[in-house]
């Protein structure tokens, strides 16, 4: 235990900068993931015959072992953080896409019919009915994607993109368990922290009328 604390203190600067890199990678990957998957999810909920193929493609990406995916991307994109980001974004897509789609298609048909009958336009139905009611699902997808990304971002070290994986890898190579833990613990804390923050946001954003 004291060994770990010593490691934290002696390598403080290194851990700190790795931690920040890790946050940067995860955060940017999830943000871009949302920017791609959320609109796509909305679109495939409207044009449903494209839904299964598109979700299928992201599901296939998900089955590629993460280390292998990083490996595949190096010859194409070279080494560095762009490669790591692309890989992380690919992993973030499926949970967000699937939950957005399921959330929107799961909205009670009678509510939509009422909206149409009242003369709401498609955009109004989307913004005033479908999105608010699908929000808890969408947020759950984002949370899953975030935790997943924080974990997988440890592999960014293999493409030279830094992050807490650097420290873990260094520890493994030098048989220094304390150093491994000094990398792994912050990753776990980061995942839990992100999840808690998002949970609060989800609670705030869930429409009041649905909490009854």
């Amino acid at each position, binding site marked *: 235990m004291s060994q770990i604390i010593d490691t934290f203190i002696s390598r403080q600067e290194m851990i700190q900068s790795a931690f920040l890199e890790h946050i940067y990678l995860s955060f940017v990957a999830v943000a871009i993931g949302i920017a791609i998957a959320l609109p796509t999810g909305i679109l495939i909920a409207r044009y449903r015959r494209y839904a299964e193929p598109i979700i299928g493609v992201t599901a296939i990406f998900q089955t590629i072992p993460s280390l292998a995916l990083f490996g595949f991307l190096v010859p194409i994109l070279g080494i560095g953080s762009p490669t790591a980001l692309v890989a992380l974004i690919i992993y973030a897509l499926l949970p967000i896409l699937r939950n957005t789609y399921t959330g929107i298609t799961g909205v*009670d048909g*009678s*509510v939509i*019919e*009422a*909206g*149409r*009958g*009242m*003369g*709401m*336009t498609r955009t*109004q139905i989307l913004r*005033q*009915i479908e999105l*608010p*009611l699908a929000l808890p699902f969408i947020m759950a997808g984002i949370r899953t994607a975030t935790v997943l990304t924080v974990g997988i971002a440890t592999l960014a070290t293999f493409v030279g993109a830094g992050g807490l994986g650097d420290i873990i890898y260094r520890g493994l190579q030098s048989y220094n368990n304390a150093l491994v833990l000094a990398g792994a613990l912050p990753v776990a804390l980061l995942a839990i922290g992100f999840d808690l923050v998002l949970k609060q946001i989800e609670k705030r954003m869930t*429409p*009041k*009328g*649905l909490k*009854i």
Partner: protein
Amino acid sequence: MIQFDKVTKRFPDGTEALKEVSLTLPSHQLTAIIGPSGCGKTTLMKMINKLEKPTEGTVLIDEKPIMGLDEIELRRSIGYVIQRIGLLPHMTIADNVSLVPKMLGWEKGRIDARVRELLQLTGLDPDTFLHRYPLELSGGQQQRVGVVRALAGDPNIVLMDEPFSALDPISREQLQDELQNLQKNIRKTIVFVTHDMDEALKIADSIIVMRGGQVEQIGTPQQLVAEPANDFVRNFIGAERISRQRTFGERKLKEFVSLFEKDWRGEAQKISVDATVTEAVEQLSASGLPRLALMEDEHVIAYASDRDLLRAALHKEEGAAS
């Protein structure tokens, strides 16, 4: 006034939901469309706000074909109540009711006043209910809000698609009574789809009976019960109800006094409570007056309209079978 002119609806698989239907729904009346499931009654109704479009034929509102009208604007000008209520669960009652007025661009003060007025009219205390959410209300209360929401934009036409069929029998009866009372004040053109003959006979000014995409009979509740056009209509109304109507004619008015109104401020045709129902109906229609005044020992004890007489005819007596 809503007119259907030779309207046919054919679905892509070739089934015909409506076959050359021509009919007129008069203004300021409650018309019930009734028939077994799959008879086309809902399709017919949904054509009025363009949720369904005719394959052939024309639908006209106030003599204007709706084909050329913008569907969004048209729907905003027509009230719509659906069976499964369809309140938006994430919005308060106030927000739900003000949806259409907001889309119509009413100013806030006018919307607020309208919402309060309508809630009051349907017996929901605005201060209690305005800021509640739909899921906090009972089914009956939710559908009251559904009706209020349909009326919010002050439409001339209100479409109701089996609005009370998902409710428990007591709430259903209550809402039917309330709708009747409400209609006395608002006099909207209401199109009411139902599969429940008791409901249709109770609340409708006229009834359209449909089967297999065609109209079997159109008439007032009285006409339907007295002269069903064919066996289908007769069966649909029910032999028991018709025979009750027949023997009913020979019974005396005094048996039904408790079902009639106690107050009436207007002219009325005097009649003895010992007269039979048949005599009462004849005298009422001969007099041209809106009410009969039932006399017992020179005192008026109750007033009855033709509608009240019909209600009496449909009234299930306590202890009577079915």
